[in-house]
């Protein structure tokens, strides 16, 4: 359970985020969506205590992310940023084993090894354990990083654009695995997604940000509407239903029906 109270963050004079109040209930997959610069990643990194808010409080699983002991926090919430470049040369197993550091402080017990093996298996990395990260494809490497975060075995998992740089097949497979992690392992997963259609297809809940504020939040059915998306992204968006999925279509603004586009003009006021 994540509670965000009156959090805001400024960069120089401009407000990057907030004030934001938000509660994210335990379990399920929550997607943060919004245009570039909306504050999605800022919000996620503040919750993941990689960035201190200027004001406000964030609590995850009852712990205040600024004041709680880092070691205790690391057993409750883990975060994976988009860019991960390491100086050291690591094998997949070494990387995933780092996820056990909060629990074992580096001395892996049998239980830790089991957790590492489970995470490797969960992300289909068996057979790659002894490969170095720089010997992997982008998709495999991304899976290895997610496996590390899952091995950390925290209740809350925060992922900043886990689909960046993945092709269609790998992006869909990654979302499916995250869905499984939420369903089978009972994780609370919060992720920033660039493509709203992935959020629509896999998330339980979508939170839309624009200009540093939460402008809409709800189930995919509630958010995946032409007027809501057009307002959030400030561009004409149509929503079609296909095979039970709601899909945003926005590739040619001039081809979006006027009825969908009208939401933009009225809603973008705020």
């Amino acid at each position, binding site marked *: 359970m994540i509670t965000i109270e009156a959090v805001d963050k400024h960069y120089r004079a401009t407000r990057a985020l907030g004030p934001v109040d938000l509660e994210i209930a335990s379990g399920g997959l929550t997607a943060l969506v919004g245009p570039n610069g909306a504050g999605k990643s800022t919000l996620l990194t503040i919750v993941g205590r990689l960035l201190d808010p200027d004001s406000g409080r964030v609590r995850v699983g009852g712990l205040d992310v600024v004041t709680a002991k880092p*070691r205790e926090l*690391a057993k409750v919430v883990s975060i994976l940023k988009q860019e*991960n470049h390491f*100086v*050291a*040369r690591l094998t997949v197993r070494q990387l995933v084993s*780092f996820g056990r550091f909060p629990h074992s402080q580096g001395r892996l017990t049998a239980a830790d090894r*089991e957790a590492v093996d489970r995470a490797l298996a969960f992300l289909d990395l068996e057979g790659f354990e*002894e490969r170095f990260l720089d010997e992997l494809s982008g998709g495999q490497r991304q899976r290895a990083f997610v496996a590390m975060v899952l091995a950390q075995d925290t209740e809350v998992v925060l992922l900043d654009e886990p689909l960046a740089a993945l092709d269609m097949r790998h992006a869909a497979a990654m979302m499916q*695995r995250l869905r499984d992690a939420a369903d089978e392992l009972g994780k609370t997963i919060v992720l920033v997604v660039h493509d709203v259609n992935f959020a629509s297809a896999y998330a339980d809940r979508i939170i839309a940000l624009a200009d540093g504020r939460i402008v809409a939040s709800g189930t995919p059915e509630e958010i995946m509407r032409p007027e809501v998306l057009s307002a959030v992204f400030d561009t004409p968006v149509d929503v079609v239903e296909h095979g039970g999925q709601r899909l945003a279509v926005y590739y040619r603004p001039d081809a979006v029906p006027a009825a969908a586009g009208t939401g933009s003009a009225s809603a973008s006021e705020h």
Partner: protein
Amino acid sequence: MSAEASVPTVGAEASARPAAAATTRERRVPLAAIVAGAAAALFAVGLLVWGNPVPADQPGFWVIVQSRSVAVATIALVAAAQALATVLFHTATGNRILTPSILGFDALYTLMQTALVFVFGMAATQVEGVGKIVAQSALMVLFATLLYGWLFSGKRANLHVLLLVGVVLGVGFGSVSTFLQRMLTPSEFDVLAARLYGSIGRGNPEVLPWAALVVAAIAVWAWRRRAALDVIALGRDAATSLGLRYRREIVVLLVVVAVLVSVSTTMVGPMTFFGFLVAIMSYQFVSSDRHGQVLPVAVLLGLATLLGAYFVMQHVFAAAGLVSIVIEFVGGLAFLIVILRKGLR
């Protein structure tokens, strides 16, 4: 894509495999550690007994061995301090190009020594003993921590900017030192020079045990923290997510590096590329980048390199004074090669 393929139960059969699977690509004791350790021991013994003018069965033999042991211990300490300092510095800064010396740690030491003599005159040289060395080291550590702690924190931590700032600071410290030295009286300058350009031949047996204690304590500390050091090397975001107080860890590491550099510089004067040479060699030779492997290999390689260099220069070329020049030459070449091959990363 099918959910069935990735259910966690698959992990049960994977975990049935022996835990040794984790180490198939890393040896428990790296080969490089064994070779370097043996070479270091060989050169140390060689330096102690080789070319001893007194036959081994006479008591005079051991007198000479004893007097040489000060030099050997000094070499060993400096090598260990430089190796540890460079590897820890690389870990703290998240790069493998910069070294404490390139960023002006040595020049800072020189400046502080010069300033001490400049401000307090000959009085600064009257006080001798451990207390003064501790006070000097404390000052050095304070300055290095404030300066580099500030440099490495926050958004400024761009490698190119750091390198530039570090080099400029280093040169700046050097110039200020030179300026202050010009204004010293010849006798003060003489005292200062003796202190700045320490050499292995003029090892100070009084300081040696204390320096050894400091280096040994840091080595033990680093060894016990090796798992945390591995995590720190992952960088700020990953280390924080894994529960470390990253900023505090970095400051502690920089303090430790400053202590090691000041110990080494106190004993033999500035060395710019030796630590770098040893560190990149150990990264090449170990099969895994874990600190549990890199740190011992770096220390042993440092010992083997410096002891070996002295042995060869003393007994083959009869030019022991040139050791630091040769090492700096080779280290500088290695530095250029690494920069040209890998670029600033």
